[in-house]
């Protein structure tokens, strides 16, 4: 039997005209994220007729399909059938995961919204840095921009809302925070998340053989360094790793 934490889930809904979304939760839960990654892998591995593209988000699997070859009703039925195959919420994590430690400047001119975020979390700046930098977060999904990870979960005190007004532009390598998650920006972008850290890690390297640095399931830790140390890293950053170390995670 499938264990469902809430009777509303899994939930199947349409996305625009030619998409279907299979959601395993509406808050960030580790089990929902596992389920989304595993269910998406199933569709890809079975190579469903008429499916054009899939992806996994924080808690959902998305399917875009050719409505001329596959009707909404048929896809819906097939998805509901597949949902009963196993307990998706306890599916294993993907294979080949890695652990990245990324040098990060917290606060100051390079990351001006750390104080604001600490305040919203009810912490001093020093304590916020300590808690954020000690937390080992997981790549929950890659999205918004190329190669860009959503990372979490952070401790519950960091469940702070997005800002109502967008910050006009934060740079590549920015570590931003909202709703108990980090995002590590892969390019300059406007955002409603608070800019709390700055790295020299490039998530998307179009010139490299492997353009996308991270995979869902990878783990990351953002280790505090000084601004001077970051400048040194930037001066020798041809490979785009920003001084990060990487090791395989044993299954």
């Amino acid at each position, binding site marked *: 039997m499938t264990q469902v934490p809430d009777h509303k889930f899994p939930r199947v*809904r349409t996305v625009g005209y030619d998409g279907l979304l299979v959601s395993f939760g509406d808050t*960030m839960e580790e089990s929902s994220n596992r389920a989304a990654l595993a269910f998406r892998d199933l569709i890809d591995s079975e190579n469903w007729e008429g499916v054009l593209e899939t992806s996994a988000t924080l808690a*959902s699997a998305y399917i875009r399909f050719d409505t001329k070859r596959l009707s909404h009703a048929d896809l819906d039925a097939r998805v509901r059938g597949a949902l009963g195959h196993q307990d998706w919420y306890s599916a294993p994590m993907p294979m080949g995961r890695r652990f990245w430690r990324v040098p990060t400047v917290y606060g100051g001119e390079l990351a001006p919204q750390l104080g604001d975020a600490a305040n919203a979390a009810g912490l001093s700046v020093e304590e916020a840095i300590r808690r954020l930098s000690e937390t080992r977060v997981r790549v929950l999904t890659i999205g918004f*921009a190329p190669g860009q990870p959503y990372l979490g979960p952070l401790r519950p005190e960091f469940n702070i809302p997005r800002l109502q007004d967008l910050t006009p532009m934060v740079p590549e390598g920015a570590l931003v925070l909202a709703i108990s998650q980090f995002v590590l920006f*892969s390019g300059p972008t406007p955002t409603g998340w608070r800019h709390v850290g700055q790295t020299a890690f490039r998530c998307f390297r179009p010139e490299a053989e492997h353009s996308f640095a991270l995979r869902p399931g990878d783990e990351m830790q953002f280790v505090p360094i000084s601004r001077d140390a970051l400048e040194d890293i930037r001066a020798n950053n041809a490979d785009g790793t920003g001084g990060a170390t990487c090791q395989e995670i044993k299954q």
Partner: protein
Amino acid sequence: MTLTVLRIGPACTIQDQGRIGYLDQGLSRSGAADILALHEGAALLDQSPELAALEMAGMGGEFEATQSTYFALTGAPMQASIDGSPVPWNASHQIEAGQRLVIGAALRGSYGYLHLGGGIDVPEFLGSRSTHLTAKIGRVVQQDDMLNSPKGAGRAGWKLRPKDRFSGGLLHVVASFQTSLFDQSTLDRFAATSFTRGARANRMGMQLESHGPGFAAKGQLNILSEIITPGDIQMTGTGNPFILLPECQTTGGYPRIATVLPCDIPRAAQTPAGAEIRFEFVTLEEAATLQARHSADLIRLNSQIEPLVRNPHDIPDLLSYQLIDGMISATD
């Protein structure tokens, strides 16, 4: 080498139908903002709609041919001329080595397209030639760039009379998975509102403005980030709608009230600043009918092209043509 860029507008990029299959890596499709224009160019030049063309946002440029080349002009109408002689839009033409093609500002709409016979040849990245500016894949076309195409491909002397899609108007939308986050009175007000395209617009999305309060969803600053597709109508924190376009983000936390049908995205993207846009919700069944009609229209393009009859006033060296011995066809 085919055309040398002598002058160019600030936001001209090479585009084909986009890069499919990298959504899971956060890379959106990109591709022409007005995909219909790619099909029109293909019909005029008798070639595949998969080929890449130059997309010109708002403003064209000046180009010098280095070899005899067939080309076509589609999308937002712009003033165009070869060595000072006007050439009609929505038509295919020939330019000789040394001649200059000048394309001006958009007269209506937003995105004009210059297609070369055989397509514009730039390196593929992940299966597409489309520039994706926000992902830093490719870059805007600049002065002194070369636009290359295979020698001798294409044809000249054909025109199309497309229906107007360059002044805004009605866009059909379907409800999507976040539509129910908006209460019914907000949805009714949205469907009854006449919007104006705002000043902020690019290949990621276009801002809409309206009088009265914004269109907020319940708890909208704490919604889990979720999948985004081109055509989604996203509400920012202040409840102002953006229609998202081919270079949009792949996920996001601001809620989407509805999604514009794929067949209406060309009309959406072409809406110039200040023009009016309204939305009509349709069911999935009605959407399927509209999409099927659009697919049939694309297939019919090839039968809708007509010979281009040039106005003698536009042929500067008319007296040099041997008009009586049949060497020049009536449609040249």
